[in-house]
């Protein structure tokens, strides 16, 4: 596997990566928007995984025995919670610099996570299989969404669960995600998102069905400016939203 090549970290680089790890996990830092959204992302993921695999979240290690892949893992904001819940976790990121950063933080947290510099397509052709594939805020950045989602489907075991979030394409999402988040709040660097690459929930369901998955759920993430927190909505999928799909057994 190509991932092995990145397993060793040059000692002189460690200090740099430690600083980057601290930056990734700084609640008030560069990744603040992601940290603010993380609780609702985790709420959705844990609820869906527990329901699909009949697990009780009050158990000490409810996800024990599940193999979970997080695509676009970044600093490990989703991988660490999944590992804490007992899952065997692989975190994949196409950005090489994220891998040692995520490894250092997992070590500080006392967690074992397999971080790899690779892509969904490469892992699919290597024949990797998972119970759950987390595909959060990635699909709006890829060049070929259909090919990408087909690779995600191949990474699932029969009966596996695919959780995918992205941003809707409509005037409101342009106002919120591009004008609001990038230009006004400066939560994200300008040019992070291309509005034309955003996908409507119906389009995403279509792409997933064509990729051989069965869409089972979709919910909105809504930001409440008064409380300054995110919450999950059954009805409002107008900007950020998340979906669940299964691979037929």
């Amino acid at each position: 596997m190509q991932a092995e090549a990145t397993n060793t970290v040059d000692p002189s680089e460690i200090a740099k990566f430690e600083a980057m790890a601290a930056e990734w996990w700084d609640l008030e830092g560069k990744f603040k928007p992601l940290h603010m959204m993380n609780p609702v992302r985790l709420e959705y993921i844990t609820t869906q995984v527990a329901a699909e695999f009949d697990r009780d979240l009050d158990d000490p290690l409810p996800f024990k025995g599940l193999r979970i892949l997080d695509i676009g893992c970044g600093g490990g904001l989703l991988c660490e919670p999944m590992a804490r819940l007992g899952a065997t976790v692989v975190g994949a990121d196409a950005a090489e610099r994220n891998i040692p950063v995520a490894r250092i933080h997992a070590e500080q947290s006392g967690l074992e996570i397999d971080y790899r510099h690779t892509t969904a397509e490469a892992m699919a052709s290597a024949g990797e299989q998972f119970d759950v594939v987390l595909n959060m805020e990635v699909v709006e950045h890829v060049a070929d969404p259909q090919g990408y989602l087909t690779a995600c489907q191949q990474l699932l075991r029969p009966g596996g669960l695919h959780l995918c979030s992205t941003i809707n394409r409509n005037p409101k999402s342009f106002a919120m995600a591009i004008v609001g988040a990038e230009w006004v709040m400066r939560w994200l660097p300008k040019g992070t998102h291309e509005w034309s690459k955003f996908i409507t929930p119906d389009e995403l369901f279509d792409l997933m069905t064509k990729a051989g998955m069965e869409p089972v759920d979709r919910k909105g993430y809504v930001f409440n400016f008064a409380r300054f927190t995110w919450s999950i909505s059954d009805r409002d999928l107008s900007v950020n939203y998340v979906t669940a799909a299964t691979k037929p057994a």
Partner: protein
Amino acid sequence: MDTHSDILIVGGGLNGPALALALGNAGFSVRIVDSLPKDVREDAEFDGRAYALALGSQRLLSGIGVWPTVEPNAQPMLEIKVTDGRAGEGPSPWMMHFDHAEIDEGPMGYLVEDRHLRRAFLSAMEDHPKLEHIAPATVVDQTAEAGRISIALADGSTLSASVLIGSDGRSSGTAQRAGIKRTAWDYGQTALVCAAEHAKPHGGIAHQFFMPGGPLAILPLTGNRSAIVWSEDRAKAHHVAAFDDDGFLDALRPAFGDFLGEITLCGERFTYPLGLSIATSLVADRVALIGDAAHGIHPIAGQGLNAGLRDVAALVDVLIDARKRGEDFGGAQALARYQSWRQFDTTKLAMATDGFNRLFSNDNPLLRAARDIGMGVINASPALRRAFIREAAGLNGDLPSLMAR
């Protein structure tokens, strides 16, 4: 022995053990460090100290499994009568009367002696598989690190956990070591606390008289006994405290009145200087404060322990929710939720009890007229009465799950 646990609690009073039991029951591994030896906590005879447990607090005790042990020694509080009084003149005709029957939730609360609560907590902690009770032991140092916090004990041993809870009172060492500052002021009042036996039954009625020197609370205990919390100007309180029991009773009678028949003292007498001491933050890196460590308030409405148990219930909800999501439950994000949940409540309560005390503890004729009219208005309005009863029962605001029905 593994020196790491999920939770470390410093302070073995009442809030610390309540939190330890709630978290232990939820499956967290918990160590609680107490500076007092267990037998001191266990062997106490009746000493006159008692708590007015709000209904919400009673529900928490039920939830953590200690209520069955406490209940035989708990006196239900069925009514509260609040009167503006002046020694020698008897109560003014203006008064407020709150009856539990108006809110349909059962008694407004329960009066429980300190010793019965302590024993119930100790025996519940004794054989709990997830709890270790370390006593006596003194914490000398604490250090927050990446992903954990460790404490050093005076005997040289070291313990670590994901989060450290300071439940060590208004002079909390945990808060000091975490660099949390406090806002404090003194009321210039001292509370005289004791228990009395009386000839006539109290009928489960709690009385609060607002005297010029400070409030006098008469709270029903089991049998023909009542707990007395008498707040006075410091000089007068020290003067009265120096009397022998007969002299003390002679000083108390004019204020107490004769509605309970002849009174005699039982147990010891205590004095507590009254002051407010609020931590400017409830959390720091891997540290959270509960109870008096977070907010030592004026005991005017008997809300000290109730506020502490509300911290306990809120923190339990926050930690369990964080763990269910796989979050680092001792991390800054989880603790910030506890802070924002409790900070407002705490400040509101401290301000309210402080304001109440300033309004009532004086003999200014204008203020006296104003507060009498205010009490008359509240008493005449069923909606306001119910709001007060729910507040006294601890059922207002954003209720943690251990306190909701």
